[in-house]
């Protein structure tokens, strides 16, 4: 396979297998997500919150981390990211169906509230941005214990207006902690557009206020995200402190299954954004770069389809938690 000049991933330090894997995770996340919407509309799962449109940002970022030692404090859209870190389609579907086996919470939390000690994904909640100081605390603890770990935390652009973002980022800046603040700027906070959320142009403009670099990148390109993240991870491991990365993306679907986005954005705008959908775009790249051909693409699609089918069936048939188990785990026993 000859490398054309169109091959950007090798230059970024990614092997062919890695970019194929990246594509796989992006596709898997998308298909799980789409299936959850179908299940929701069929009345089978009560709630969906999507990663659709943000898969490139998430997968690009996750690939730059060390999946054996780094920590994630993600937010509710990071389905693609937690897949890269080890969660499976089955895990996600168990969560969507709120079944006892859901590894995040045993069905206690809504889907999207990730957490797995074994994958070093800190349990998350709904109030936005509370995970930011947690990430800083993990990094502080890692530094105290002289561990070589990087902590990644993500959040939406609207959420970067919360006090906890400011307080957490400043704390990390003061202590030069190995934290990466990753903003998935999808241009809306539910119905509220950027111009009504941010006094500034770019979320990355905020980094200067904490004494570390901030950068805005195309979040629809997983290779660009990977490259930027890689540098931030190196900085962090070298003890040079945090980085704020703003990955510009778009939320292709409504905020959640309870939302109706027609009240606040035009169909044209959404259609335009669909043209930049990171998944077909990355598929096209892989083909241009000679890494994937039609057949591989089809096989991948089938594999993903099968995984999603299996996961859905398993989760649908899995048992619910016992009612009285609601009383468990308030305190250590």
């Amino acid at each position, binding site marked *: 396979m000859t490398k054309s000049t169109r091959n950007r991933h090798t230059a970024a330090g990614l092997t062919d297998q890695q970019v194929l894997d990246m594509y796989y995770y992006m596709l898997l996340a998308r298909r799980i997500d789409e299936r959850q919407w179908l299940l929701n509309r069929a009345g089978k799962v009560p709630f969906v919150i999507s990663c659709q449109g943000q898969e490139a940002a998430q997968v690009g970022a996750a690939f730059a981390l060390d999946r054996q030692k780094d920590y994630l404090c993600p937010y509710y859209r990071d389905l693609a990211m937690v897949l890269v870190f080890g969660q499976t389609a089955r895990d996600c579907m168990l969560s969507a169906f709120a079944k006892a086996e859901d590894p995040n919470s045993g069905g206690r939390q809504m889907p999207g*509230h990730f957490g797995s000690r074994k994958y070093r994904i800190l349990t998350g909640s709904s109030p936005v941005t509370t995970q930011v100081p947690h990430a800083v605390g993990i990094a502080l603890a890692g530094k105290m214990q002289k561990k070589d770990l990087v902590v990644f935390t993500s959040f939406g652009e609207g959420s970067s207006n919360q006090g906890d973002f400011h307080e957490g980022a400043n704390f990390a800046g003061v202590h030069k902690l190995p934290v990466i603040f990753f903003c998935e700027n999808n241009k809306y906070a539910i119905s509220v557009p950027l111009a009504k959320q941010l006094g500034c142009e770019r979320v990355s403009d905020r980094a200067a206020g904490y004494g570390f670099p901030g950068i805005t990148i195309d979040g629809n390109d997983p290779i660009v995200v990977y490259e930027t993240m890689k540098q931030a991870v190196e900085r962090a491991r070298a003890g040079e402190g945090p980085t704020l990365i703003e990955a510009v993306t778009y939320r292709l679907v409504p905020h959640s299954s309870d939302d109706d986005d027609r009240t606040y954005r035009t169909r044209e705008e959404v259609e335009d954004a669909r043209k930049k959908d990171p998944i077909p775009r990355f598929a096209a790249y892989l083909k241009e770069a000679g890494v994937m051909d039609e057949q591989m693409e089809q096989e991948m699609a089938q594999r993903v389809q099968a995984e999603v089918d299996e996961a859905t069936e398993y989760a649908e048939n899995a048992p619910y938690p*016992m*009612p009285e188990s609601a009383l468990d785990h308030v305190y250590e026993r």
Partner: protein
Amino acid sequence: MAVISFIEAITQAMQEEMRRDPSVFVMGEDVGVRGGVFRATNGLIEEFGEGRVIDTPLAESAIAGVAIGAAAYGMRPIAEIQFADFIMTAVNQIVNEAAKMRYRSNNDWNCPVTIRAPFGGGVHGALYHSQSVEAMFTNIPGLKVVAPSTPYDAKGLLKAAIRDNDPVLFFEHKRCYRLIKGEVPDGDYVVPIGRADVKREGDDITVISYGLTLHFALQAAEKLAEEGISAHVLDLRTLYPLDKEAIITAASKTGKVLIVHEDNKEGGVGGEVAAIIAEHCLFDLDAPIKRLCGPDIPAMPYSPPLEKFFMLTPEKVLEAMRELAYF
């Protein structure tokens, strides 16, 4: 009189007050073109424009704090907290600022802000979209805490809150929004803050509640009546400061008291209600003061069997009422 839903009553109250007084305005997350995630502010931006219906940045402490500043200046902001669970980042502004402005300035400044927040569960909202957080605020002199249960009270109390010259926290049980309908007069009226309301007269047992569970008590009372047991049902309506007199009167009337709320039992509002009774009419009691409440777990879980386990129902309330009646 028209029959409208609980949420329509909320919307009407805001709309009418905004028409009546140009200093009234609305602010919060998604309250503009989206009309609020529950649609409580539906139609307001169309009528009053984005100058008076403000989609704020996603930051609750600023929502409260900016509203407090505007209120101190002389406006009458209605700030919406999207879910009561998210009010916690605004606690400092509400408790240390709004509630203390009049007192700390020796009456020089005051803070006529209304903060609305949907609370409670039963809507598959899981741990963070189902909480009853009222107990956190029912120990704060300077603040008033209101939680209506009917459309009539919701409209009248919200109008009273908006016109009040002190800060009012206004909790709306989100399950009531579309479930509960009731008659609401066409004209302007106000329901006074600070007064509980007897929602059903009875002689054998007294049930004291608020919010969604008040309706469970009323339904249970209906059933119990068929069994020949007559229940007196008091709706607290205002959770702080409590209407002590009404509580004492209602408790004394039957001598048997059941307090019902969805919030956790330990440290919930019911504790104070029981304490008032135990202090003021202990010798009128014929039975221990009972409380039927949500379990003492951190919040309502998502999975249907767990949510069901948490939620009270008319049946659970009925059983507790019957038990008390036969004590």
